[in-house]
């Protein structure tokens, strides 16, 4: 019955994003408040921490797609040849299939021979779909359609908004951690009348630093888990849009069988792509619990297996 779940998914992701912002601001404010309370510096640290929170959220939400696009060397797609015209047609078709107007802007990574694509932009109106030139060359219409539908799902589900905020949150936790470590240096260590206090303060700061470290690690694991789950979900939504699992499955097979990394991709942008552009081993292993924890993408063979309704082991063998 769950046909056409985009609107639901979108609402849920927006709600979760607001929740993240609120949670984040409260936690940062609380950290500052506790420090102010201990050092009797009210209200400075509360304000500083709230400031950090505000800046993080603003930077995360206001930075347009241009940062990511220029970092991977993407250029706007010109409608030179038939392939390019075709891509633009496909995007227009699928935007209608998903009931989203206007269609996202199209970029490409010129001269890159690998097959890959990503979507960026926090709001649908400044969304961008970017493909490699290798994708234009290697994939036929049906396969391109599957990949584009996958990217459109990310845009419609507001996955970027949620993921960006989650990374900003982790960034802020890291800031707190550094802050606590630095602050320990400034705690007076004897002679003063706050002597009895300083030991307690050091323990507190150590606890904050330790907690922040644990949270940062935990945050990354959550971020990766969300990223993997979003990939599966976008695959499913792609099929919901195109009603054709064969196209995406065949595209993923071609991706799996085309070696090579995207030179311009980095760990900061890798999770955006439809398949890991860095080809890190962790993303292609059958893997136990621990390897899976740090993967940004589910292994291609499991994704193909889900689309084709076969067992992952079988696809794994076929691809070798």
């Amino acid at each position, binding site marked *: *019955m769950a*046909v*056409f779940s985009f609107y639901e998914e979108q609402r849920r992701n927006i709600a979760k994003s607001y929740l993240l912002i609120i949670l984040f601001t409260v936690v940062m404010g609380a950290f500052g408040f506790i420090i102010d309370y201990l050092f009797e510096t009210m209200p400075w640290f509360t304000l500083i921490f709230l400031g950090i929170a505000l800046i993080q959220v603003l930077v995360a939400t206001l930075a347009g797609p241009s940062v990511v696009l220029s970092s991977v060397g993407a250029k706007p797609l010109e409608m030179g040849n*038939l392939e390019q*015209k*075709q891509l633009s*047609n*496909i995007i*227009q*078709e*699928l935007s*209608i*299939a*998903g*009931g989203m107007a206007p269609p996202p802007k199209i970029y490409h990574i010129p001269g890159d021979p690998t097959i890959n694509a990503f979507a960026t932009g926090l709001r649908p109106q400044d969304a961008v779909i970017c493909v490699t030139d290798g994708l234009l060359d290697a994939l*036929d*219409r*049906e396969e391109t359609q599957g990949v584009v539908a996958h990217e459109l799902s990310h845009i419609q589900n507001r996955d970027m908004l949620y993921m960006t905020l989650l990374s900003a949150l982790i960034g802020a936790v890291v800031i707190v951690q550094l802050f606590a470590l630095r602050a320990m240096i400034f705690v007076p260590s004897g002679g003063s009348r706050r002597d009895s206090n300083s030991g307690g303060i050091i323990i507190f700061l150590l606890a904050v630093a330790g907690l922040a470290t644990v949270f940062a690690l935990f945050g990354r694991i959550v971020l990766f888990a969300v990223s993997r789950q979003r990939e599966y979900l976008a695959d499913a939504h792609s099929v919901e849009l195109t*009603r*054709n699992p064969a196209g995406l499955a065949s595209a993923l097979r071609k991706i799996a069988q085309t070696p090579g990394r995207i030179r311009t991709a980095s760990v900061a942008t890798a999770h955006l792509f439809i398949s890991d552009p860095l080809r890190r081993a962790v993303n292609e292993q059958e893997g136990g619990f621990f390897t899976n924890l740090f993967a940004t993408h589910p292994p291609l063979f499991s994704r193909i297996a889900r689309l084709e309704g076969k067992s992952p082991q079988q696809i794994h063998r076929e691809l070798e």
Partner: protein
Amino acid sequence: MVAVWIILGVIVIIVIWFIASYNGFISLKKRIENAWAQIDVQLKRRYDLIPNLINTVKGYKDFEQETLTKVIQARAAAVNATTIPDKIQAEGVLTQALRGLLAVAEAYPDLKATQEFMQLMEELRNTENLISFSRQFYNDSVMTFNTRIAMFPGNIVAGMFAFKAATFFEVADAAERQAPKVDFSK
């Protein structure tokens, strides 16, 4: 006193739920109207494209006249159809005729190789997809709407404001029901 507050609270919740359901139905209805308008836009686009296609193909000597005539007739019928069932029927015939034309074109390798034909082919493929995707979106929206207004407790609100189930864009012809399988990949 407590009982009064509880009753008041329950009433407030019911009213909020009422408003939310009503607004939900209205926004779904708007989505359906918009989706229908989209289908119309795409169908017009296809009418405009057909003369170009015919002109390109006509130049080729002994191209099956029968197929061409079929397309031209089907287009005329579709343009002139006034009621929605007629329109759906005529569009089905046109889609079939176009597929026939494309199938015939497969037999003319030099025609197929021309840049002009390839571009037209892509345009046509694009239009066909736009039509079927806008129909898909329309039908999905209709299904969501129809399910919502039929399900308890939404059906109470729907009944009070006389929301009627919307009509699906059903495909007339059995062959049409199959997924488009014109294969000119790449």
